[in-house]
């Protein structure tokens, strides 16, 4: 899995005008990892769901992911399910969904 290079990510983020307040979405058991969503940046493309499914179940089925994206107007919603452990069990720095979001809408703090 190739991560976005940071210069490219910056370029990408600059292409959108919408700024929004990050919504707190999910934290791990001891509170050291938290995922935030910038709701106005989310395009509901579900690439986070695909990334999650690939990492955790090795399938391409977005329905087996540990989060759900709901396309609503004007802003989309992301819901993390109970079984999401922020990829701690995989021992990676960055959860798959955060890493694969093409618009930088999911953030790890």
């Amino acid at each position, binding site marked *: *899995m*190739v991560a*976005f290079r940071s210069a*490219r990510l910056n*370029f*990408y983020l600059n*292409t*959108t*005008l*919408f700024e929004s307040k990050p919504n707190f979405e999910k934290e791990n058991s001891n509170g050291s990892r938290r995922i935030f969503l910038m709701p*106005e940046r989310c*395009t*509901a*493309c*579900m*690439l986070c769901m*695909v990334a999650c499914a*690939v990492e955790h179940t*090795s*399938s*391409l*089925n*977005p*329905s*087996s992911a540990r989060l*759900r994206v*709901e*396309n*609503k*107007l*004007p*802003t*989309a919603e992301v819901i993390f399910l109970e079984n999401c452990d922020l990829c701690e069990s995989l021992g990676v720095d960055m959860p798959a969904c955060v890493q694969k979001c*093409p*618009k930088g809408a999911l953030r790890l703090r």
Partner: protein
Amino acid sequence: MKGGYIGKILVVDVGDGSYKVIDWTTEKDEWLKFIGGRGFGAKMIWEHTGKYTDPLGPENILVLAAGPLTGLPVPGPRISVCSLSPLTGIWGDSAVGGYAGLKLKQCGYDAVVIKGWRKKFAYLYVSDDCVELRDASHIVGKGSIEAQEELRKEHGSGVATLTIGPAGENLVLFACVTSDYGRQSGRTGTGAVMGSKGLKAVVFDGDAEVPVADREGLLRLLEEAKERIIENRELFGQFSRYGTMMTLDWAQDVACLPTRNFAESVFEGAEGISASTVEMKVMRGKRGCFACPIACRTISEVKLNGETFYLDGPEYETMALLGSNLGVSNVDDLVAAHYLCDHYGMDAISAGVVVGFAIECAQRGLLTLDGLKPEWGNRDTILSLLERIAYRRGIGGILAEGVRRAAEIIGGGCENYAMHVKGLEQSGYETRAAPGMSLAYGTCDVGAHHNRSTIIGWESRNDRLGTGREKVEVQILLQHQRSLFDALGVCRFPWCETKLPFEYYVGFYVAATGINLSEKEILKASERIFNLTRMISVRRGVSRKDDYPPKRVFNEPLPSGPFKGVKLDAESYERMLDTYYELRGWSRDGIPTREKLEELGILELVEKGI
């Protein structure tokens, strides 16, 4: 089947709610020739309809077909909605994006076929283990977006829906099928076919996995493709910011922006409806279809009667046809008109052309508009005409038949202002100074639509006014390449807008299905589909006489802009058409020859149906 395909097609008779599941893998060589999507649609429509089938009768079938790549994380899954078109009377198909394609495949079918008809409106609920017709009285009469909200409340927001609005219920001949707030299978009036069957909506509620032959290979290719898309910084940055809206500025620059019912090709008020104006004034967010890193869709805010609504749009086509083509230079009026089209569930391209036609005819004294002022850019006129069309009230009853029929009914020489080919209203490119694009409209299999070939881009870069052989060759290649995406069941924008090489799609197909096809073979399959859709139309009376752009293009020179005084030369158009038929292996009358059909391996199929 190793992957990509599921191997099953669901056939539902809406008359009594009975259904059967066809396992097409028993004859898989016959089916795989047609790839999927619109290819499967063409095969089924060739076999199950005939010369005299009424498009709005019970014998016509509506095919919702996904392709082999639909439902896999290839950017933008598409469903091809195929049928005999009530607007043109011939083959019609239109692809719709969003999430519906994903959910259809997750229900465990490659396609859903709807036949028969019923009196009382119902909706079809399909999931992994259930197919059911349910009472739709609570959503009948509602707008297509409201109906969708209602169904999502009922079945959970994870479902995908295809709905029709009041226009589809009232059999407006250019009604469309709406998915996912504002994705439309716009052209050719598939919504009217769905309305004629008494079907208000289809709900897909599946969670199953779509099989794939070589998962690792596909993932690697997708990752590489994403890198390639993003590497193309300028195009990618612009396209993900503005989507198709950025075409408006380009169309104005190269003078092909339809203005005031295609009378002119440059619009003095283009600034007021341009992409940057939309971004500054009404844009509220961006959306992408499933698995698409580009996200070209725009969400805008609409103010209508003091209330706020959200619109999935505008797109270039709606900006051109509901904007410049109606003389609208105010972005608020533009998005209001677009929102009404989405709400009523009718094709914004056809609606724009029809309203433009009505205003021009009224100005020339051929028609009265029930007391509305026939002025370009008049918000009241445009919005009330759209409403009258959707409910077939007053003059709307005539306009709801599309420009071809409306011009026949009104008479008095107004067919000179009816912009259509084969009955389908012309989409957003003015072609008097673009012979190649005129040919593209003339020879497109559904009518005057740009999705088979937008050679105008190539023309404006290479040879704008030429009518040579090279242009016709490019045209045919484009018709095969572009329509292949509807057969594969994915969006073509990563290829045509952000320049992802075409080989990637061949790679995706091979990785997903495990079937080894070369680029040449896959384009051959696309040619096969194109010839079969042509035969469907030929069986219903189409020949050379129907392959001409609208009269206006030949008769009236352009009154303004850089191509002032230019019109399309009839003789050179005839020459191009001859070359086109020759290169396609069709007769001089525009009918595919026996040899051609044999070469493509569909002679037997065609002979059985004729």
